[in-house]
């Protein structure tokens, strides 16, 4: 791996990460690693019931435990002025039930916090929490996504039929007409099971209040510290924003689950003031499984209409989305604007209509998990296209190719609101097929079937929408926030540079990629640049990282701020060189009159000149610092083709992924090594959804697999090596041509693997099974198919 230092080469180079040294030597600083003098520890008392009335809470015995400092209940918080946690995305006629940080009279899911015990050490806090006696009257629980609407029990009294909202998009009449004209109609019911994000670092928070200065500081596992500060300060706690500092230090993975405002950090931020001591809490893994917002959980009926030659005419989708017991921060936008708008995929589909019913149940709240809505859309579309190919008797690659939006049709307006920025889909599929040697694999598959082996090939040609924007549009769709990003670039007098970004890294390597970008733009070595993020006291208000937006939106904000720096540097250089600013050009950090590079002013010299201010043009202020708030004009749309080859064991139903080829087009790439790494991890998570992972509850709402012993996060020996490649179609939306790469793997891989397994089972006449495609499920399907044949 080379480490080029010249400014021309670092953009697009696989520069090794500067974050690594601290993580590899145990010097990372995650929230739970921070301890202040006098720190106390919180333990939460949680409901063991999915639905129960809280009759009384007896803290008598717990209070007597030595070392216990305070115990608070929901009633005390409410009396102390703590409000409920709001949602930040509103839809027409949405039901907004209150979400108090500690349940007051009713608990609505297993694990919901009902009281907090704060003690001098974490063990004592846990001991005492176990002695808090809550008198519950259990109530019937609503659990099933499909059954929620007809359940006699209501999760929230304000939501009849447990419906949170009904949402639709597209032209229903046009779809009806398309189906009337269709030669083929393909129908399928698809379950997209509930998943847990399982970031390896459990959620954690440490709150500290300084009575003398009235400053509140919160260290928290957050993907967006400013959003945490705004929502907690302005809505939940009533703490003035300028007296509230939120720090998200090193964060050990997020995958969406650390976007949201959770009850625990609200309780801590309030309690620290009450007891005048810092308070810390870190989730156990069991608590993570019970309380981290979960993902997916859709039941969908999909219908696809095609003409006699296999051209897609129309798509009709009806989805029930389970939101869990409360509305998490961005829950309403996930099964709507991040889902329904993606249903055209990479295909030219003249008519689309989608309806979504979102329901409350007595289960853990559901919100964005890596991909968030887009994996659900891609799974649905890629499954139904595959089923259609089988039904019509066409090759699945050929059916896809003939329905691709052609390369000359961009910008392309879909029938579901979005306008795709750029795309060139056929080369990505062709490259994937070539890398796999598709004809040879088809032949091998046929040979294997003769030997009684069940090999399957699954294709997925997906689209993703990243860096959701612009703010005016998302505002009109219900977002209660803008979706721009900030950057501040501070050049020090010696020419060294601090870049403050509103993006937040929790594994993405921004300290490296953003330094590459800044080095490229400024023409100075990476070593002269530091990247600062994750602290509201240091960084201008920023929106944080989710939806694969950091490079495309946060990166462009840095690029634009640097543009302002360079403009000012040019004016100073022009003054020193006695030339007009428009005649000054810059190369590798040297500023000179065009055509006369020998009389150049270096970046360091210009910085020093700006700060000495002895010799500046009359209309130029001292100093060299610039801000940018960049609001993109549109989303960006990465795409690609993934192909999985699997073998299903007839004896055990076990699936082995034999080969995996991924071709992604994420636009321009700052650091290919880092992008490949994110693609690997995303594919692993997507394969895990197809084959192993599923959050399960029993009929009473009791979680059945809320630990890493029972929830099947894949281990190293379950996964193959992935063969990755890229095509490059730059985005015209931003000046960097970047699209976004954090979620492509997760979106693409689930349908690729599911399609491959179904292809393997084709000889048994099996056309569809719902995920996860566990050995038991596959073995049973093969057995019953065999029995039917014998009978």
């Amino acid at each position, binding site marked *: *791996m080379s480490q080029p230092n010249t400014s021309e080469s670092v953009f697009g180079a696989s520069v*090794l*990460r500067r*974050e*690594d*040294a*601290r*993580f*590899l*030597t*145990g*010097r*990372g*600083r*995650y929230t*739970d*690693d921070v*301890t202040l003098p006098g720190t106390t520890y919180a333990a939460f008392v949680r409901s063991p019931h999915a639905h129960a009335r809280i009759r009384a809470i007896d803290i008598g015995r717990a209070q007597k435990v030595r070392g216990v400092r305070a115990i608070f209940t929901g009633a005390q918080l409410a009396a102390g002025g703590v409000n409920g946690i709001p949602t930040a995305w509103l839809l027409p006629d949405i039901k907004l039930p209150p979400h108090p940080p500690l349940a007051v009279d009713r608990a609505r899911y297993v694990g919901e916090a009902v009281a907090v015990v704060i003690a001098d050490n*974490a*063990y004592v806090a846990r001991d005492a929490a176990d002695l808090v006696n809550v008198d519950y009257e259990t109530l019937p629980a609503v659990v099933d996504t499909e059954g929620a609407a007809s359940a006699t029990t209501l999760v929230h009294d304000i939501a009849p039929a447990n419906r949170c909202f009904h949402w639709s998009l597209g032209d229903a009449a046009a779809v009806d007409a398309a189906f009337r004209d269709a030669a083929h109609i393909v129908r399928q019911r698809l379950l997209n099971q509930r998943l847990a994000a*399982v*970031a*390896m*670092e*459990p959620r954690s928070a440490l709150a500290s209040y300084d009575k003398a200065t009235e400053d509140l500081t919160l260290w928290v596992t957050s993907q967006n510290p400013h959003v945490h500060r705004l929502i907690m300060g302005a809505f939940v706690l009533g703490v003035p924003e300028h007296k509230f500092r939120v720090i998200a230090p*090193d*964060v*050990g*993975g997020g*995958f969406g689950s650390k976007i949201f405002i959770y009850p625990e950090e609200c309780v801590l931020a309030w309690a620290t003031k009450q007891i005048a001591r810092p308070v810390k809490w*870190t989730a*156990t*893994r*069991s608590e993570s499984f019970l309380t981290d917002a979960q993902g997916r959980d859709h039941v969908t009926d999909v219908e696809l209409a095609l003409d006699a030659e296999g051209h897609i005419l129309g798509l009709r989708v009806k989805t029930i989305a389970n939101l869990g017991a409360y509305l998490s921060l961005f829950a309403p936008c996930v099964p709507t604007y991040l889902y329904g708008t993606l249903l055209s995929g990479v295909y030219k589909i003249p008519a689309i209509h989608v309806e979504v019913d979102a329901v409350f149940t007595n289960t853990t709240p559901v919100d964005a998990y890596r991909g968030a809505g887009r994996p659900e859309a891609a799974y649905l579309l890629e499954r139904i296209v595959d089923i259609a190919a089988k039904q019509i008797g066409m090759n699945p690659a050929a059916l896809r190719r003939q329905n691709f939006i052609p390369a000359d049709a961009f910008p392309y307006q879909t029938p579901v609101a979005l306008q795709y920025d750029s795309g060139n889909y056929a080369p990505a599929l062709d490259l994937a097929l070539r890398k796999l040697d598709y004809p040879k694999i088809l032949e091998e598959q046929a040979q294997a079937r003769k030997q009684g082996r069940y090999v399957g090939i699954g294709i997925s040609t997906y689209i993703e929408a990243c860096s959701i924007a612009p703010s005016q549009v998302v505002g009109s769709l219900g977002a209660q926030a803008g979706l721009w990003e900030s950057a501040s670039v501070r050049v020090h007098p010696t020419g060294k540079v601090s870049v403050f970004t509103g993006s937040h890294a*929790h*594994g*993405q*390597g921004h300290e490296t990629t953003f330094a590459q970008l800044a080095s490229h733009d400024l023409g100075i070595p990476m070593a002269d640049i530091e990247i600062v993020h994750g602290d509201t006291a240091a960084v201008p208000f920023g929106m944080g990282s989710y939806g694969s937006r950091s490079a495309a939106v946060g990166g462009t904000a840095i690029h634009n701020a640097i543009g302002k720096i360079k403009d000012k540097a040019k004016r100073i250089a022009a003054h020193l060189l006695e030339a007009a600013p428009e005649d000054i050009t810059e190369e590798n950090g040297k500023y000179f009159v065009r055509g006369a590079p020998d009389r150049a002013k270096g970046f360091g010299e210009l910085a020093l000149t700006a700060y000495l201010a002895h010799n500046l043009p009359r209309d130029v202020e001292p100093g060299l610092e610039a801000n940018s708030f960049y609001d993109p004009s549109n989303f960006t749309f990465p795409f690609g083709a993934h192909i999985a080859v699997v073998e299903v064991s007839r004896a055990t139903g076990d699936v082995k992924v034999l080969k995996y080829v991924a071709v992604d087009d994420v636009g321009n790439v700052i650091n290919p*090594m*880092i992008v*490949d*790494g*994110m693609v*690997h*991890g*995303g*594919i*692993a*998570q997507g394969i895990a959804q197809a084959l192993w992972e599923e959050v399960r509850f029993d009929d009473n709402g009791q979680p059945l697999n809320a*630990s*890493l*012993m029972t929830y099947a*996060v894949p*281990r*190293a*020996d379950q*996964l193959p*090596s*992935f063969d990755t490649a890229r095509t490059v179609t730059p985005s015209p939306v931003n000046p960097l041509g970047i699209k976004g790469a954090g979620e492509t*793997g997760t979106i693409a891989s689930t349908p690729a693997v599911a399609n491959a397994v179904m292809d393997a089972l084709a000889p048994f006449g099996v056309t569809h099974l719902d995920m996860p495609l566990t050995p038991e499920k596959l073995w049973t399907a093969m057995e019953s198919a065999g029995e039917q044949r014998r009978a």
Partner: protein
Amino acid sequence: MVEIHLSVNGAPHHDEVEPRLLLVHYLRETLGLTGTHVGCDTSQCGACTVLLDGKSVKSCTVLTVQADGAEVTTIEGVATAEGMHPVQEAFHQEHGLQCGFCTPGMVMAAIDLLQRTPHPTDEQIRTGLDGNMCRCTGYQNIVKAVKAASEKLAAEVPERPGRTPIHTPLGVPIVQ
């Protein structure tokens, strides 16, 4: 309270601890060695892996009193004045880490794996790291890193017969 004497990263420690205190909490809270992480409560994730008398253990499943008289090595004790351990260096070179949370445990497990199996195949690496979870990398570059480290260490470590791990029903590899 129970009196214990142990060595951590070569430094002697003498403390009185509660019998129930987990080794990982002793390391993190008492000694301030926060490089060792806690990722689960059930000994599944391996983020807390340290070496106890040279062998990898999950320190969330070891009581501090069990480490009485032992030598403990944590991630903070792996690098030397000359620089990072070859396994650490290989993780850096091969991009074997992203968020960094599983990394200390993964490095400790890899060091132990290479002590037992100096010339592992990719499959042996995948099986050997079965007790350590990573959610970011899909393991691909971790496997590459361990392979690269094994090649670098090969000159230094004499060949010993490899031992094959046996998988218990919970997927925890036990090496005989």
